Structures are given as structure tokens and as C-alpha cells.
């Protein structure tokens, strides 16, 4: 059950993300990138295998690694979240600058000719 929910979440998020990424307005592109990065973050997390109730840190005396959740993807996902968050903020600044410089929120910097 949990696998289906997770797979659906990743699928829906990335499908919406890709669709928004290909839209003509810069705001849509930003939201698309956000959704895609959520999908990727959950995907990284899932690569550590889905376990319920498995502790991430070993206790002394109970060192069987199979009992524990894999901590590496959790560390990776933290790094990925921080980086994509920072870069989205940076992208937002550039989008604002583009809006100011070109007077349009179209990704080409000009309204399409009708």
C-alpha cells in the first residue's frame, strides 16, 4: 500500500512539474521546478527502501544492519532539499530582474506575437 501511495505521489508531482516547466510564464516554470524537486526528493528517499518503524541509528548491542533504515539517502535528501531551495530562491531573483528589465513575465522576455 505505502509503495503505491509513494509511487503515485512521485508520478503525479513529476508529471505536473514537467507540464508546468514547459509553460510560457516564468511563475509557472518556478512552480514546476519546485514540484519536480519535491518528486526527486521523495524519489531519493525511496531509494533507501521503504521501511516502517525502523530506527536510523544503531544502538550498541544491536548492530545487525538489516534492522535499521539506511541513513545515507536521508542525508542525501537533506542536502538536495537545501540546495534546490537555495537555487529556487536565486532563480526567483533572476525572474524578478527579468520582469523588471523586459516588462513581461514570458520566458522569452516578450509577449508572443498574435
Amino acid at each position: 500500500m505505502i509503495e503505491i501511495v509513494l509511487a503515485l505521489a512521485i508520478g503525479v508531482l513529476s508529471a505536473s512539474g514537467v507540464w508546468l516547466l514547459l509553460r510560457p510564464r516564468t511563475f509557472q516554470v518556478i512552480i514546476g521546478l519546485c514540484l519536480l524537486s519535491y518528486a526527486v526528493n521523495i524519489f531519493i528517499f525511496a531509494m533507501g527502501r521503504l521501511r516502517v518503524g525502523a530506527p536510523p541509528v544503531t544502538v550498541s548491542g544491536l548492530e545487525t544492519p538489516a534492522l535499521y533504515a539506511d541513513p545515507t539517502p536521508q542525508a542525501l535528501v537533506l542536502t538536495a532539499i537545501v540546495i534546490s531551495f537555495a537555487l529556487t530562491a536565486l532563480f526567483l531573483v533572476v525572474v524578478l530582474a527579468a520582469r523588471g528589465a523586459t516588462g513581461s513575465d514570458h520566458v522569452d522576455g516578450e509577449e508572443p506575437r498574435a
Partner: protein
Amino acid sequence: MTDWLEHLIIGPIVLPLVVAAGMLLIDERRRIVKGVLSLAAMAAILVMALLLIHESATGAVDGGDVARVYRLGDWAAPYGIVLVADRLSTLMVALTGVLGICALVFSLARWDRAGPRFHILFLLLVMGVNGALLTGDLFNLFVFFEIMLAASYGLVLHGSGETRIRAGLAYIAVNLTASLLFLIGVSLIYGLTGTLNMADLATRIPDIAAQDRGMVHIGAAVLAVAFLIKSASWPLGFWLAPTYSAASAPAAAMLAILSKVGVYVILRLNALVFSAEAGASAGFGLDWLLAAGLATMLFGVLGMLATRDLMRAAAFAVMVSSGALLAVIGGGGTASLGAALYYLVGSTLACAALFLVAEILERGRDPGGDAGKAVFEDEYRDPFEDTERNDPGLVIPAAVAALGGAVILCTLMIAGLPPLAGFIGKVAMMGALMSADSVAGWMIVGMLAVSSLAAVISLTRLGVAAVWTRDEAAPNLVVGAGEFVGIAGLLGACILMSIFGETVLAYADHTAAWLAEPSAYIGAVLTGEGR
């Protein structure tokens, strides 16, 4: 190896980071201090890179090749993160150093005043590139890639202006998407092999269960798409020409190395993970690289012939050289790879020099790209700014002669005509490919010949138009002393490469042979020998 030499590997990463962080504390108006600091840092990086080259080529007990491994926090290899300095990575670090110092000297004449925090972004870019080249861990590679890209976003926008913002917007969107693909590829590979260390990955690839092998290949392919986007391979590289031609000249010169970092990673991962020892995965994806490389070269050639702008021609020359390298990695074999590495160094230096020359020639013709506008008015205000900003300081005499000579040298290098290094590299590559006598080899030879012809036609036409038959209305050519020194440095490096062609080519050939035998690299990382 003495103690301080052991820590030398991390120097090219830590030094620019520390200097850049320290510079944040210095007021933006104290340009001389900042310029001197970043010049000193770049010079130190170059010296460190040369020491590392010497060490990696002669450091073994028997005086042969060695991969020096630096364990961060002294954690043993598959668990901790390692930095690895071998022949290939140190060569690339040295190339970055030469390119960086020349672009920096060039920028001191004029461009470092065109916007805030230029030196900091510049040093962080160098840090990211060096980190990506030296790391031996896939996720760490991602982090350094992001540092490098974040700094490059800033540098692309440096100088501001509408053209740059528009080009930067597309550049950032494409690269953010590529970074997400990078993450998907890395995590797929981790999920199936349980390791992120490149050397450890190489040892685990032959033992992958048959039902998992397809997924590992998908992971590797997704990862490769991310790097192909960065190396501007066709059809993923349409962002390159508008971005590089819009960027300010020193930034564009540094961006020339960025696309080569993508090529470097593809070469490194192919040589390690899909080497001849990789069992059923040996040589995975090489045909795709060959096809992508040839298509990139063709696209670059057509772009060069079609463009009417020297900056753009330089950007397409970057694409052609990336394409040639990808094609040789895919279909060339070890013998031609050595020559291709020599060509990589020469063509990167020449393309960077061409960006610098082209910017001076086209100055004043590009209303969108003037250096006098800031992104945010309050960000950068200086009472002297308008007179001082466009003043190059000391000006050299005979600007037309100097620029004309520089254009000729760049053309000779990029087209691969004698007597310069471009010729040596191309002939060595063609010779090796012809003696291999494969269909792939002959296709690459053909494309190399076509690309030379296109480069001659395009660069001579644009060069003549820009230097000798200039528009009467165009402003007079002015070359600042710093600008001249920067260009002369890059072209001087090309000339040195030609004079000492045999030595450099022998080094490149040794590097290709070293890459063909990944066991020494893997052993050094996993057993901790040569730490």
C-alpha cells in the same frame, strides 16, 4: 610525501573558498585590495595544480603514475568522502588555473567594475570546478557542481543588461532541470549498488544481479543526460550559444571550462565504471556518446557558418570541441584519447581567448550588454561610476595590430592549422583514428576535417569584418593593458603547448593509458595506498 604535500590536494578547493568568504567583509569599493587578493589566490591555485601534476605523474614509489587520495575527516574510502588527484584531474585543475588567472587579469582592466561581488563569484566558480574535478564521490560531485553552477549563474548576469537577463533565465532553468536529473541518476545508482564512491562503484558493477543491471544502466544513462546537458551535446545544448555570447567576456572565458567539466565527468565515469573489467556492462553507452558527439560537431559547424557575430562563433567553437571529445570517448579508443586530451587543453584555451578578443572587437556594438547598468540600482552605487567604469586605465598602443594578431592565432588554434597546438592535436587524433581503421574512427576524422574548414571560413570572415573592414561609425578599438595581458597569457599558453608539443602530448597519452587501467585508481582509493 611530506605532511604539507599531503594536504595539497584540498588546497585548490579550500583556498578560493576562504579568500572569497574573507572578501565578503571588504567594502565593494576597495577594488585594488580585492583584485590583488584574487590574483594571489589564483596564482597559488596554479602553483598547487602544477605541483599536483608533478606528483601524480612521478609520485609512485617506482617514479610512475599515482592517484593521490585525500580522505576528508580520515574516514576510510567507501564510507567517507575522498578527493582523488590523478593525471587527468590534475591536468584539468591546471587548465582551470591558467584560464582563471588570464580571465581575472583581463577583467581587472574593466569588467570587475561592472557589477557587485565579481571576484567572490569568480573564486567560488573556480572552487566548484576544482572540487568537481578532484572529488571521488558521486554525491560530492553533485554538491560541487551546484556550487559551480550557482556561481556561474551570478557570473552570467554580471554586468546586467536585458540580453544577459534573458539568456541567464533560460540558462538557469535548463541547468536546474539538469541538476534534478543528476539527483535521479545518483539515487538510482545508490539504490541498486549501495555505494556513491566512484571507485567502489567500479568494483561492484561486475557483480550486479542480472535483473538489476538494466536499472543500473538507466541510472547511468539519466546521469549521463545531466552531464551531456552541461557539455552542450546536441540536442541538449541549445542554451549554450545564447548564454555564452551574452555573458561578459571574462565570465564567458570561464564558462568555456564548464562545458569541459561535463565532458571530464563522462570520461571519468566511463573509464572507471564501464571499463573493460565491468563484465556485462563494459562499454555501456559508448555508441550513444559517439552519435551525440558527431551530431554536436555537425550542429556546431552549422552554427559557426551561420552566425554573424564573433562571440557566437566562439560559443559554437566550444560546442565543436565538446562534440569532438565526446565522439572520441565514444568511438576512438585509448590511442586517440591521448591526442583528444591534448586537443581539449588547446581548444579550451583558444576558445577562451577568442571570447576575450571578440568582446573587445564587438564592444559598443551591443546596446543590450553595456556594463553601465546595475540589476538593482541600490545594490551598487558609486559617485565616480560612469566615468570610471568604462575607463580601461593604461591603454596599449597599436591596438588593431594586437587584436588582429590575436584573431589570427585563435583562428589557427581552433581550425587546427599549422604551426600551433590545434594542428598537433588534430593531426595526432586523426592519425590514431585512421590507424584504428574503424567506421566510427573514419566518421570522426571526416567531421574533424569539416569542422576545421568551417572554422577557417567562419573565423576569417568574421575576423576580417571585425578588425580590418570596420564600420566607420564603430568606436575606435581600445585595448587596456590588463586585457592585453590576459589574452596574451592564454595565447602564450597555446604557443608554449605547441613548442613543448611532444612533452604535453606524451603526458596526455600517458593519461589515456592510465585511464584505460582503472585498477590503480581503484586500488589507491579503496586500500588507502598513496594516501
